[in-house]
């Protein structure tokens, strides 16, 4: 009970502290009224139905990319190659969409999703395998793989998959309007949001209620013990990395099939990197990822309004994100100290 309370209280305190710090910065450096700014941010993020849709649309890719860090983190691995997995997933998805453009939309969409998830999964599994069998630090290798992914994307988009009519913004051939996955009925939020929420629920169920999840907890706690217990650690590492990569790859497919209709350099705009932030803020808990992604989506959604009404630079919301990140990381030390423990005896 106390633990549950702490899990809510500590992040709340951290967020409050961030808000105060950001407010002070606003008042001292930007010389704007902090309360007015927060009211405006609320308007831009959650104040109206339009704002909500804006926020949720921005949150959708972050939920999926956050899983790419969160799942390997359960085993004690810090993977930050989310952007790369998204990019290769997007390109593979577009390629599958082009290849199946004559088929029925459902077949094409499935092909795109499978191709994107397989490619994204393999991408991060590669970092996992390098760590497991070659001892290469997975944080560094997954980050470096991102640059390779972007270079590969540029190669395919400007070379073999290029639509020659995309003169000044090189792009692949379009997947065709019929194969787009569209928006959730009654909203203009695309289906990526639902995919993300389902993926988080699935991850939570697997981690919480299955022997796989239990094995992953054991490995995360102490890999040596896990090995002595006879667990095939390498297999779980690859599985967790592949599952995380598949989620980020799916985010790439959603970008192609719900937003752009083709793959191009707009895939690499930082959703993957923002996903790392989301995962850490959620302390790698699959269910916590959803509200955290919505919060960051909301901050992004309100950024435009701050620029237009208060003449603040775009960097203002980036500063807020940074403050929140530091505050949440620092608040880790509060666990177990915040509330008085019941003394035994």
């Amino acid at each position, binding site marked *: 009970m106390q633990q549950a309370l702490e899990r809510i209280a500590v992040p709340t305190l951290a967020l409050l502290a961030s808000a105060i710090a950001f407010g002070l910065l606003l008042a001292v450096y930007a010389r704007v009224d902090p309360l007015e700014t927060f009211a405006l941010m609320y308007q*831009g993020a959650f104040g109206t139905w339009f704002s909500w849709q804006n926020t949720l649309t921005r949150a959708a890719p972050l939920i999926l990319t956050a899983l790419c860090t969160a799942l390997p983190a359960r085993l004690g691995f810090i993977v930050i190659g989310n952007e790369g997995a998204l990019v290769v997933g997007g390109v593979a998805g577009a390629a599958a969409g082009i290849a199946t453009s004559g088929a029925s939309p459902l077949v094409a969409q499935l092909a795109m999703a499978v191709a994107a998830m397989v490619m994204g999964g393999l991408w991060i599994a590669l970092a996992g395998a390098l760590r497991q069998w070659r001892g290469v630090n997975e944080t560094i290798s997954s980050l470096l793989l991102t640059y390779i992914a972007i270079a590969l994307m540029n190669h395919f988009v400007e070379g073999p998959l290029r639509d020659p009519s995309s003169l000044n913004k090189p792009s692949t051939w379009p997947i065709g309007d019929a194969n787009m996955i569209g928006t959730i009925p009654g909203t203009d939020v695309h289906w990526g949001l639902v995919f993300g929420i389902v993926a988080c629920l699935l991850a939570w169920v697997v981690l919480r209620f299955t022997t796989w999840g239990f094995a992953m907890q054991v490995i995360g706690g102490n890999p040596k013990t896990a090995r002595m217990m006879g667990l095939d650690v390498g297999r779980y590492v690859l599985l967790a990395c592949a599952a995380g990569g598949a989620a980020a790859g799916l985010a790439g497919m959603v970008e192609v099939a719900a937003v752009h209709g083709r793959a191009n350099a707009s895939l690499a705009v930082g959703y993957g990197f923002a996903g790392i932030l989301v995962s850490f803020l959620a302390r790698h808990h699959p269910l916590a990822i959803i509200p955290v992604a919505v919060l960051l989506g909301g901050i992004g959604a309100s950024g435009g309004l701050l620029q237009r009404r208060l003449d603040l630079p775009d960097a203002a919301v980036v500063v807020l994100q940074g403050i929140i990140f530091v505050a949440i990381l620092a608040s880790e030390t509060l666990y177990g100290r915040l509330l008085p423990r019941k003394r035994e005896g």
Partner: protein
Amino acid sequence: MSDKFTIGRRGLLGGAAGAAGAAALGLAGAANAQKPLVVGFIYVGPRDDYGYNQAHAEAAAVLKKMPGVKVVEEEKVPETVAVEKSMESMINMDGATLLFPTSFGYFDPHMLKMAVKYPKIQFRHCGGLWTQGKHPMNTGSYFGYIDEAQYLSGIVAGATSKSGKLGFVAAKPIPQVLRNINAFTLGAQSVNPKVTTQVIFTGDWSLPVKEAEATNSMIAQGVDVVTCHVDSPKVVIETAERAGIFSSGYHCNQAKLAPKGYLTGAEWNWERIYVDMVNAMKAGQAPGNFVRGGLKDGYVRTSAYGPAAAPAGKEKADAAKLAILNGSLAIFKGPLKDNKGNTVIPAGTSYVATEPKLESMNYLVEGVVGATS
């Protein structure tokens, strides 16, 4: 807290209805004098980048001074669903009725999607992609033939260079960029046929580290004038100035960054287009759907000559400018060979700026050192 910041649900609906009403009224020629025309600008990078975005922001600043006009701006908006939301937010929350999403990648699918959703709002895009019959009538595009200004800059660069080696830092080998590289080189060759232009493609629009590396490596190879086509020329110009070589600007005026070595530069003059479009809206008309022009229309210009520009170059550039203005000089004319020896424009053929073949340029002319792929 002031009133303008409290937008309740009802207020928003009222605002949206008001915006739609204002659009209808605006086009009916009965613009309400009390309600300003709200114009939205969206930039892909920072407003003060000494480059592509600043060129637009400087023109937006001119609009801000016009009576009855309110300008709202957003910077660093990526070419994703984010720009769709920025446009929608400007329409719904600020009552914008004329939008200028200025980055090339905003057009398809983002701006087109919004134009269908908000048929009463006018969208004008920088880049020249609009096609009659294919794209909605409440959208349009505008662009300038900046290769004309690049040609003039090339003349000054060619006349000023001592080594005869020019450098060009470019983002991607796409038609717009190749056209600039070629025009700059042809301008330089018109005063010194032996001039070569070393080109380095960095691969993307904003990669400051690679741009600095490219500039330094060209300086090491003996290049003594550099120019560029990336989003922000700041790094290239500053690196050149530090190394004591000459530079030629792009997008907007960078003379401040290189008081010694800045020769001239190819600049946009977007305010001509924006002021026209805003005046059209105020007069109750839709702004033009396909607006293009070069030096003659005043959409592009060259920076004032710097102290290092060779007098002969200035003279010849001024003469070439007159010839472009009176139509007697075509930049791209045959016989023209690419740098692989193929004839790309046969003898006797001469292209005017509007020639569609120039829009899909995929070669580098003879004298350019570099490859498109």
